[in-house]
């Protein structure tokens, strides 16, 4: 079993809750596919403190994205438990109180993807509002939040532009705003600079660091680039489904 221990980062959690000192805790998690023929994670344990900035590195197939998906509630482990503020995430396990995956993703986690994944039919303002669509709450409030985030990320002049009218860096900034609109406590970024040139990569990293500092969000970033991982507070490396560092 591999393990790593986090330390508190630069900002306090956005919302206190639970008795656990860790915002995220992974206990001996295994994940396999195709009836166990493919083992993506082979017993990973990990803790992440509130406000931490954790980078996960590793080669393709090392299990880093699978771990990120489990941390973000996109998937459930085959064995082991993922805890958020001491509560398990996903279906109830071993009598532990669990947070429903949809609720967890909607209220506590925000995702940033390598390919941005903006919705092409919507402009920047609208893309940012999508996580809130269908929630109770007034239109104006939703728009206000989206606008404030886009302005904060330097996109005040691109509010009504569609994804095809934005540069790659701008698209990723819109995606960051979208990930933040639910005021998540955990921000999960999967190769957020993977499709960007060096200038834009540096800018996005600055923004992520600033967001993490300003909003007190816990940031977990997957990258294969060690220089990018070096910007994090803490760094773990993965190999063959295990934490090796």
């Amino acid at each position, binding site marked *: 079993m591999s393990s790593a221990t986090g330390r508190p980062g630069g900002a306090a959690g956005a919302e206190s809750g639970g008795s656990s000192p860790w915002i995220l805790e992974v206990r001996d998690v295994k994940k396999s596919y195709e009836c166990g023929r493919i083992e993506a994670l082979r017993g990973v344990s990990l803790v992440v403190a509130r406000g931490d900035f954790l980078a996960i590195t590793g080669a393709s197939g090392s299990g880093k994205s699978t771990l990120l998906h489990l941390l973000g509630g996109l998937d459930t482990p085959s064995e082991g438990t993922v805890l958020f503020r001491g509560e398990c995430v996903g279906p109830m396990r071993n009598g532990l109180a669990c947070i429903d995956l949809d609720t*967890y*993703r909607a209220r506590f*986690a925000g995702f940033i993807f390598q390919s941005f*994944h903006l919705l092409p039919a*919507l402009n920047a303002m609208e893309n940012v509002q999508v*996580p809130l*669509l269908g929630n109770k709450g007034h239109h104006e409030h939703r728009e206000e939040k989206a606008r404030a985030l886009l302005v904060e990320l330097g996109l005040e002049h691109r509010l009504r532009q569609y994804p095809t009218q934005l540069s790659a860096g701008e698209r990723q900034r819109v995606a960051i705003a979208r990930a933040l609109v639910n005021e998540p406590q955990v921000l999960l970024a999967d190769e957020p600079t993977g499709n960007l040139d060096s200038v834009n990569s540096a800018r996005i990293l600055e923004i992520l660091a600033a967001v993490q500092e300003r909003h007190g969000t816990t940031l977990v970033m997957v990258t294969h680039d060690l220089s990018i991982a070096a910007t994090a507070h803490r760094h773990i490396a993965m190999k063959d489904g295990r934490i090796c560092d």
Partner: protein
Amino acid sequence: MRLSFVGFAWRNVWRRRLRTALTLCGIGMGIGAFVALVGFSRSFEHAWLEMYANAGTDLAVVQKTFLNTEVDQSAGAVLARIPQIAMAAPMVINMMAVTPEVNTLVYGWKSDTFEFSAINILSGRRFQDGTQEVMLGELLAGSLNKKVGDSINLQGTEFKVVGIFRSGSALETGAIIMPISEMQALSGMSGKVTAYHVRLKPAPPGVSPEEWRKEAEDAVAKDLPGLRAVPAAQRAANNQLVVLAHAAAWGTSLIALLVAALGIANTMAMSVFERTKEIGVLRAMGWSRHRVMLLILIEAAALGVAGGAAGVLLGWGALHVLGALPQTASIASTTLPLQTLIDGLLMAILVGVLAGSVPAWRGAKLSPVEALRHE
């Protein structure tokens, strides 16, 4: 424009404009067929009702069996003795070709029937019993370009046009009325009539019209075994021609609607497949399976609503075309009943939601990770 949940659904639908437009055409054709055919058959029924109401007919005496509408003419004497009945008028009805293109309803009446009270003779006079004389409804006279004094050939027999009339019922305004004896001869119904139309005496004090009518119905059933008296409204809805018209309209419409439903299902299935990754993104952002399902169902319903609106317009236009065609103009009016309009739109929404339910379920059950990996 503000982004709403429904607005988001519509944007998704409108992204593939050509495919959406083609799907809307399919739905429009289906709903158009429904509105035109069902609207036509309903206005046909309405015209029957008007005809009975205008003539003051309270009951129609017909055979109990559904398809056999032949009543022995001797029943008239029995009906005349029933105390609740004021008048009983024998009538024969049939559809006949007056030209190779024009079919029309032909009524056989007695010249002294109370049903003439609903007829306004515009020119000429009433026919005389036992003669080869006919009266033409003004709509039919106009389309055949006939006037009083002209002749018309029916089933190989020449009849003289002695009157042109107007009626509140589209069925009569586009029809021919002739002596019942001549109609029986033409139809091979010697000694038989299609039905007796009955006007009741006023209900005596202390007896409600409904009770009075029921008493008359019971008396007919008792005195004329094998026959039954049905209220005029029920006769309008249940007569053989109306029932067949309804059945044909609904049957044809349902086939057209099935084709439309398959079009929506195909469009939504394609749309869900193409947007698999987007659905994964929505799920990653915390959208529940129910919310994804609702989005796809709203998209399908939006297709139904838009297609339904187009279909209602198309059907309304088709009714006007039917109303203008000589073959169909005399059958019924072309007014689009509100009920048919509402039914058409509801049907379109229902078809949309049903057709979208399987794609919606498939989209909703996608695992976020699998969906995000989809290429």
